[in-house]
Structures are given as structure tokens and as C-alpha cells.
């Protein structure tokens, strides 16, 4: 099918298009020049509407063993929120904070998002993650393997054998179809295996290893640079969820600053920074460390951030930071799940509710927004909710409205804990994001930091992933009329995925599947051979499955999109 999207206000930051009236042409799943369309092209009248690339989410827990563990332990999350099947059009599903796979795909697409990455998968169970990703309709996707407590990584780093560490990661990414290096409370899973690791700091020693979290972060950052992976190391900092932890966050960012080679692109991505942006020395004295973090980011180009913005209401917290979930189990007694994965990682899950009148929750809500509003460069800040930890991804339109409208924020100011509100600079900030900046943080910058060259823009040759919203930027003052923005962003007027119209008037039109991205770093043969032999020798001792059954074949996934990467490794 060919389409001509006519007369829309086009927002395409990667091509410097700032809301100009333009036509966008779609043919064979790609954006083409309008002159290439045949007479059969269908015209979409987008006059008075906004046209953007499809949304790109770099951090949302949508698939894998812990997500399903969350679903299993929370039937109550599914009773009231469900989607009916429309025979022949869409499948059914259920769940609010831990929705089933079809619901995830449909709800993202309804908001105009078309690419989403799962940011934490245990390598041993990544076959499971891919099975779930395969069953998420419409979206393109990928996943980040957890590597900070992987025994091979720890051994190589302990021996300062960075070449082999990088070669191992290169092999692993290809073997289990991963996309980027994920670090969660570096080294914590090894400590948690001994029932330790609560409040692990950047310079503490990891049990059984002569290593500190700092060395793990630096080592993996070096490996990432050697492999030249498209995405920087994706780091959940130590001491997440503890008052005073903004210092750890600053230290973690600074721990790799000397590795930055004056390039424009970040070499470390700090994820859900709200959870590691706390000043104060107890819950009673909690305050925002957001200003300090924003100041650092404004002065250092090697860092990018995503928010983990709190949205008031029910959530399901789930993270590979198992000791923190154990702590949260005490703060919010009730259900608690935890799983250890041999030789690699661990995880925990606790249901939680953020309350407006709660002092701590109010401070948390302020921190995310404060950081987003104080960081000047929109290319290095991402408005995530760390779905489903700080809020479900379906709250994105609301989060964006808070960024776009001081009035929207003021409305919340009236409802939240007064004392909590004074613990950050948020009330003093007047900045409001414009629609162009919103386009950057929700699409263009995501595609850029993931290194997806055909995503996040509408230039000729880009993937035809397009969102059209019923919003007239010439008529609407988002600062005042943010509710209209929320309404339009909740249900896109149209969403196109790979040139197919999948959403119209906010409703799903068809069930189809996207592709799974993974990286294939080119590791020199002799080095690869040495490392694989090394892994094989110890695999039998360390793992309960055989090496050969660990590797995932391309044919096991519905549709793969391998990204070849030239590394700097030498044989």
C-alpha cells in the first residue's frame, strides 16, 4: 500500500523540520519522495494535524521472565483492565501495569509509538524474552542483556583482560540476540547470591571477586567502546532507592568521564535517574538531588539520562536489583518475588502504589520533572516511566504534558504533599517544552542513542513508522490547553508501522508483527575462538545447561534485524 500524508504540520528534528506544512509519502514500508508514488497511493488528509516519526522507547520492561513473573503474581492487576478481542482485527488481553503481550503492542501503537526496547534480560533466559517480544504485535523491539554480575565478565575484569571481556560480550550479543550492555546496581547479583548487597556502594568490594562496582562500570564501558556498540552502557546506579544516592549517581557518571573521547555521543546512559536522584540522609529528610545531576549533565556531554518519572497510582516494581526489592518488601509489606539466575543475575518484584499525599512519593514525583526541565539538551534526556516501575507506559501523554505546561504541573502541586513539594526546585522552574522538543525526546533522540539510522525521522529512506496526532500547533497553546494534548497523544489519529496503517482514530486496525534488533559485533576469529573455548571449559562447571543449548538461532525468532558492528578488537 502507498500513502500520501498531505498538509500535516511535520515535526522531524533529525532533518530540522520544525512543524512546517509538508507532504510525507510512504511506499514499500519506507518514506519516499512524493514523486515516487504511483496513482494508487491513498491520500491521508492531515491538515490541522501533527505528523511525527513513530515513538521510540529506550527503556520499558515489556518482556521476559520477570515481566511474566509479575503477571503471575498479580492477577488483580488484570481483572479490571482488559481488551476484548475483535475477531479478525485484534486479539484480546488484560493487565494495567503488567499487560499481556498483545495489549502492550496495541497500546503503544495507539499512542503512536512503534519501537520499544526491553532494558533487562538475563542471558540464560533470553530465549524466553525473545518469545515474548515475538508475541508483541506491531512494534519493533530489542533487549539489553544483564552483564554486571556475569561470571565471565567478572573474571575477565578481575584479570584486567579487557580484550577478552569485549570479545566475550561480542560473542554473547550475537549468541543470545542482545542489543546493548545493561548494568544494574553493578555487581549486586553476586552479593545477593549470599543474601548481601543491600546498599552496595560504588567502591565496595564484590564478594568472591577482587572488584568494585566502579571497576565493573569502567570495564564494561571500555568493552562497549572496543566493540563500538550502537548504544552506550545502560546503567542503573548503585544505591538505587536510598536517600542520599544522588552522590552515587554523580560518582558513577564521573567514573567514566576520562574515557570520553571528546565525541558528541554519550558513553554512559543513566537510567530512571529519579530513583537515584535523592538527597537527604533518611526518608524523613529526603530531598531532591535533581539540580546537582542536571548541572553535571549540562556540563558533560558523555552522559545521557532517562527519567523513571513517577505517575501517581498503582505500579509493579520489577528490577534486577534484587536486594532493593527486598528493602521495598519491607517498606511496602505484601507480595514479594525474587529470582536468582545462575552465574548471571537476579531480580525482584514488589507491587507498589504512589500516593499524592505521601511525602516521599511527592519528592520522587518532583525529581523526575525537575531533572527533565533543568537538563538543557533534549537529545540526552528521555521521558520514561521505567514501565512498570514508576508508572505504566500508558501515562506518557500525561508525563509529557507536565513537561509542556507549567499549568499542568501546578494542578498537581495543589494535590500533593506540601512539605514534599518544597524539597525540590520544581516550583521555581518555568520552562515548558515545545512540541519540537517533545518530538526529540520521544522519537528522534531515542533512535539516535540506539543507533537506529532508519528510525526516529521522516527523511527519504527512513522506515515508514509514522504517528499523526489530531493537534493543531498553530491553534493550540499547549501551555494552557495541555488536556487537548493528552487526549490527542493517548489515541493517535493514525499510526503507520512499516508503511502499514495500524491505527486509525485511536483504534487498532490490524494485528501484525515487527522485527527484533540485535547486534552482531565482528570479533576477530582467533580472539573469538580463544574466548569461546574458554567459555566452553567453564560453562559445564558453572551452568546447569550445556553450552550448545545456550545459543539462540536466528530461526527461533519471528523476524530478526541483525546490526553488523565493526569493532576495534584485534586478533
Amino acid at each position, binding site marked *: 500500500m502507498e500513502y500520501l500524508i498531505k498538509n500535516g504540520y511535520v515535526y522531524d528534528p533529525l532533518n530540522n523540520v520544525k512543524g512546517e506544512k509538508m507532504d510525507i509519502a510512504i511506499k514499500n514500508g519506507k518514506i519516499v519522495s512524493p514523486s515516487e508514488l504511483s496513482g494508487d497511493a491513498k491520500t491521508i488528509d492531515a491538515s490541522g494535524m501533527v505528523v511525527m516519526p513513530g515513538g521510540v522507547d529506550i527503556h520499558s520492561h515489556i518482556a521476559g521472565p520477570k515481566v511474566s513473573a509479575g503477571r503471575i503474581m498479580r492477577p488483580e492487576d488484570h481483572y479490571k483492565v482488559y481488551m476484548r478481542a475483535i475477531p479478525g482485527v485484534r486479539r484480546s488481553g*488484560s493487565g494495567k501495569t503488567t499487560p499481556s503481550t498483545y495489549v502492550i503492542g496495541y497500546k503503544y501503537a495507539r499512542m503512536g509509538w512503534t519501537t520499544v526496547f526491553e532494558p533487562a534480560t538475563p542471558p540464560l533466559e533470553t530465549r524466553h524474552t525473545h518469545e515474548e517480544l515475538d508475541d508483541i504485535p506491531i512494534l519493533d523491539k530489542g533487549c539489553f542483556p544483564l552483564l554486571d554480575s556475569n561470571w565471565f565478565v567478572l573474571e575477565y575484569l578481575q584479570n584486567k583482560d579487557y580484550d577478552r571481556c569485549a570479545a566475550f560480550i561480542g560473542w554473547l550479543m550475537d549468541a543470545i540476540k542482545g542489543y546493548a550492555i545493561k548494568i544494574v546496581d553493578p555487581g549486586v547479583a553476586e552479593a545477593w547470591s549470599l543474601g548481601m548487597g543491600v546498599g552496595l556502594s560504588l567502591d565496595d568490594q564484590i564478594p568472591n571477586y577482587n572488584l568494585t562496582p566502579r571497576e565493573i562500570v569502567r570495564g564494561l564501558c571500555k568493552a562497549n567502546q572496543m566493540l563500538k556498540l550502537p548504544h552506550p552502557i545502560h546503567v542503573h546506579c548503585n544505591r538505587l532507592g536510598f536517600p542520599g544516592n544522588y552522590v552515587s549517581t554523580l560518582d558513577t557518571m564521573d567514573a567514566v568521564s576520562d574515557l570520553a573521547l571528546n565525541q558528541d555521543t554519550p558513553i554512559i546512559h543513566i537510567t530512571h535517574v529519579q530513583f537515584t536522584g535523592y538527597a537527604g540522609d533518611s526518608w524523613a529528610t529526603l530531598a531532591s538531588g535533581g539540580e546537582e545531576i542536571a548541572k553535571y549533565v549540562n556540563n558533560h556531554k558523555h552522559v545521557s539520562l532517562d527519567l523513571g518519572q513517577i505517575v501517581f497510582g498503582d505500579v509493579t516494581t520489577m528490577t534486577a536489583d534484587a536486594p532493593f526489592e527486598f528493602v521495598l518488601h519491607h517498606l511496602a509489606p505484601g507480595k514479594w518475588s525474587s529470582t536468582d539466575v545462575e552465574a548471571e543475575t537476579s531480580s525482584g518484584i514488589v507491587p507498589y502504589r504512589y500516593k499524592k499525599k505521601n511525602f516521599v512519593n511527592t519528592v520522587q514525583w518532583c525529581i523526575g520533572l525537575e531533572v527533565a526541565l533543568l537538563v538543557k539538551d533534549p537529545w540526552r534526556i528521555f521521558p520514561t516511566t521505567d514501565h512498570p516501575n514508576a508508572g505504566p507506559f500508558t501515562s506518557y501523554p500525561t508525563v509529557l504534558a507536565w513537561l509542556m505546561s507549567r499549568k499542568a504541573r501546578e494542578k498537581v502541586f495543589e494535590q500533593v504533599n506540601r512539605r514534599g513539594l518544597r524539597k525540590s526546585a520544581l516550583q521555581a522552574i518555568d520552562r515548558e517544552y515545545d512540541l519540537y522538543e517533545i518530538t526529540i525526546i520521544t522519537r528522534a533522540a531515542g533512535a539516535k542513542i540506539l543507533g537506529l539510522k532508519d528510525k526516529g525521522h521522516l527523511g527519504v529512506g527512513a522506515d515508514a513508522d509514522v504517528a499523526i496526532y489530531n493537534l493543531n500547533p498553530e491553534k493550540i497553546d499547549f501551555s494552557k490547553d495541555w488536556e487537548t494534548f493528552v487526549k490527542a497523544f493517548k489515541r493517535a489519529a493514525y499510526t503507520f508501522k512499516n508503511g502499514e496503517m495500524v491505527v486509525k482514530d485511536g483504534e487498532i486496525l490490524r494485528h501484525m508483527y515487527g522485527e527484533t534488533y540485535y547486534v552482531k559485533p565482528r570479533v576477530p576469529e582467533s580472539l573469538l575462538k580463544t574466548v569461546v573455548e574458554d567459555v566452553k571449559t567453564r560453562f559445564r562447571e558453572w551452568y546447569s545447561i550445556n553450552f550448545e543449548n545456550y545459543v539462540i538461532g536466528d530461526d*527461533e525468532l519471528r523476524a530478526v534485524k541483525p546490526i553488523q558492528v565493526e569493532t576495534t578488537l584485534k586478533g
Partner: protein
Amino acid sequence: MFTLITGRTLEQGRTMEIGKFTKDYMDRVAICEINPEDLKKIGVESGSNVKVKTAYGEVVVKAVSSNTTSPGVVFIPMGPWANMVVNPDTQGTGMPNLKGVPCQIEATGEAIPGIYDLLKKISDKTFEAKISKPEVAVSGRSETYSNVVCCFCGCVCDDLEVSVENGKIKSVKNGCAISMAKLLNYDRERAYKPMVRKNGKLVETSLEEALNEAAKILAEAKYPLIYGWSSTSNEAMRHGVYLAELTGGVVDNTSVSCHGPTILGTQQAGVVKATLGQIRNRADLIVYWGCNPVYAHPRHTVRYSAMAKGRFVKGRKERKIVVVDVRPTPTSKIADMFIQVKQGMDYELITALRMAVKDHTIEAPTVAGVPREKILELADMFRSARFGVIFLGMGLTMTSGKGRNLEEAIKLVQDLNEWTKFVLLAMRGHYNVTGTNEVIVWLTGYPYAVDFMLGYPRHNPGITTATDVLIRGDVDAALIVASDPASHFPRKAVEHLAKIPTIVIDPRWSPTASLADVFIPTRYVGIECEGVVYRMDGVPLRAKKLVDPPPEILSDEEVLGKLVEKVEALKLGR
């Protein structure tokens, strides 16, 4: 009056894999283990026939003297004979009372009924064995495969070595007794042609006709049951969920009658787990509670737990082993401590342990038949372990309390994490019961017993569970895939299954196949085709294809894919 318990045995598992229509199977399963003292009391000699009577039915089986069975308790291995007398009440959990049923036992001159005799008692359908001689694929390749993924129990061992000669499996290395029995005998009780019941008899037909008939049954049904799955791949399971959605039926897997209650416990409390490798590498205290891996998961102790050599804990000597069960088992023989709990009183014992762990005073001198001092000693062992694990079996899920037992066990482990590192793991039975639970949960939001009557997924154990919809007679058609409920569901459920149009898709002939109205033979996952399966701890593995399938036989996934198309055509008018 005795108390009847049922469960797995090694011989039950082994002979089942050779064939349920063999004399061997009947000899091992149509038995009742009774304490010698009790035998004397009722005046029955070991080896003679007895009639077991409960409020739910009666059955004739062979009495077998057993020292490990406590006085007052009798044991019948799970299977068609036990089903005649177990209590079908699921008490709102989906799990019938398969353990702890009051029964009477008397000497009888009656013969032990065969499987068909049992089926004839509950249905007027004609039953014929349709087993044919093995058909070997033409190609007849010869090859040796290593790293073979075993598709029998939840251990899913992936280190088998299988030699294939001329298209037939010749030898198996590293396998347990059950795995060898399966791999060397899988083609003994098979039917190779699709069949449809015509004028009361199953007659051979083409795949196309069988599929048409099956699609018609499903499309015309108001509320079909789509059940089984635990012995097939995740790929097949996906089709199963879709069929339930398309037909507005209910989809369920065999967890309803194994670890469904463990899931109910998890829904209440969460769960604290670890993969088997983590346990092997680190656990210095291993508790087997209500499970008997030496019989049911033969390589479990060697590969993953008691005897296994790990990175930090090197083997049996460095571990403490505790077994909690209602009677001594082969597993308790390898234990350092055996705790005999009174049948049906696990909940009390777990609660007492939770109290002891928290230093609360236990006033009763014994709890659930266990002396207070023993409970305190055990609590101390738990707290002083470096890394403890409790493996939970059907001794907890099938007995009274069901999901509550598991909830309490989970909370005990959660409590213990205040002191030390402690995890638990359910000993899942079928090789892919874990995987199919996962597929159902990620597609619908609920892990089993999912109803689509209103066009979206709903889950209400006790209402939407396979056992209950059959026992109550709610469903008006059934699709049974890779499972044999006629052998493992209570009599009342099987009676209704025999009444309604039933489609059976299975690699082998089974009692359930015997009562089918449409039967479609398929390939064995892990022998004749590939497929993704999940181990009991959730580690996903890809099963291999070892031999070529018999001619014209497709996989479950392929057959179900075709069935989906046909049901879609009828339902959506495509």
C-alpha cells in the same frame, strides 16, 4: 477406615512411558500399597485383590504389602484406577482432593479391571485399541546426537546422547530410567492415521477430513475446553490460546492437577526462587517437602541438588538434606533428617516452623505429628544455612489446604530471608508445564484456567479450571492436546469428557484417545520435531529433532495451525 493417598512412582512413570495398555503398566499402577499390620487386620494377603471403596466410587486393585506406608494410610499410584475413587471436589482451586481420601478396603474375589473395563463403566462409547505397528520413516538416517534435550519431566536434562541408526533410536546415554523408557519405546503405543468416530466407532480417515470434523466441533461449541499442552512445545500452546479466544472457550494446562495450587500461593504472596544452577552451585541445605525426586525426577538429585557438584558447594558431603513427607520414600533414604508429617497437616507444620523461625513460643508438644524439639531444631538448621532451598511437591498441592499450604511455604521462605539466603522451587512434573503456563500468562495475563466466554481473558480457579468445567458439566466440547485426562482426572470429569464431542491431538494412543470423536496423531516434540520447552525453574531450552517422523505425520504446531485456519474460516467467514 483408611486414608487414601495417590501419587507418582518411578515404576508408574517408567511403565507409562512404555505404554499404558501394557500388562506391565497395569501391574505397577493397579495396586494398593498397605502396611503389613493393616493387611493382617483386614485379613488380606499381599498379592491378592482388594476392593477400595470411597464415597466417590470403588475399584479393584492388587494389595501390596509396604513397610513405608504408615498404618492407617494406603497408597495407589496415580492413574486410571486411582481416579475411580478420588474425591473430585476441588474446593474452588481446580485441584481435586487426590490425597487424604477416607476409604474402606476389603478382600474380593473380583478381577482387576483393565483400562477399557474402567472406561466402559463410565461411558457407553465403543472402545478399541487402535495401536498399530511402528512405521519407520523411509530416509533412515544414522547419526549420534549430543546435548539432547530430554522431554519427559520438569528436569529437562539437556545432556543426553542419542544414537540413531537407520532412522530408529538405538541407544541413549546419560538418561534416567524414565527417559530411556520413553526414548526407546515411544513408538510402541501409537496410531498413525487420523480417525473420526462414525456410527459409534473410530474409523481411519484423511487428515483433511479429521481437521474439518474437528473444526466443526469447535466452531459449533458454545463453550469448549481446550486442555492439555504440558507435553508439547510453546509454539503449539500459542495456537491453543488462540483457539480458546476464537471459540469463546476455556484454555487450561495440566498445572490444574499438579502445581496450580503453587500458582495460587504465588498470587497471594509472590515467590522467592532461583534457577537450578544457582542451587547446585551454592545450596548447603536442601529440603524436599512432599516430593520424591528419586522416583518422579530421577536425575534431579544428581544433576541439580543433593548429590550435584557445584562451584562453591562441591557435593553431597557439603550439603544437609532434609525430607518432609507423610511416609519414608527413596528420597528420604539419602537424607540427613526425615520428618514424618501427619497426612493433611503440612500447613500446621509450616506454620509452626514460621513461629519457630521467629522465636515465637510453640505450646503444643507435637505439631502435625512432629515433636516440638524437632521443629525447633529444623528452624535452627534453616536459619543457620548459608543458602537454603525447599523443593515443593504434590504432597503439598494435592493435599488439604492446597494453595494455602504453598502460600505458607512461600512466606516461610520469605521470613527466612531475614536471616539468611533461602529460596524455593516447585517440582514441576511434565517437561513443558512451566513453558505452557508462561505462554498462557504472557498472551492472556493469567497463567492457567483462562476463560474467553466474554471475548476477553478471565481467570477464576474453581470456576474456569479444566477439572471444574468438566466435573460440573459446563463445557460442550473438548480439544485435548498432548495429555491424557482420562487417566489422570477424577472419574466424574472423565464421565463428562466421554459425553461431549472430544478431539484428541497426541503422538500416542491413550485412554483419552480411546474416547475421542476425532483423533489426530502428531510428532513427538524432542524426538521427531523441534520446539521450545521450559525447565521447572523457567530456563528455556530448544528441544531437538532426532529422527524423521513417520510419513504424513505433522507436529502439534502444524496440525493446530491448520485447525486454527479452519476454525477461523467457520467463525469469521473467511
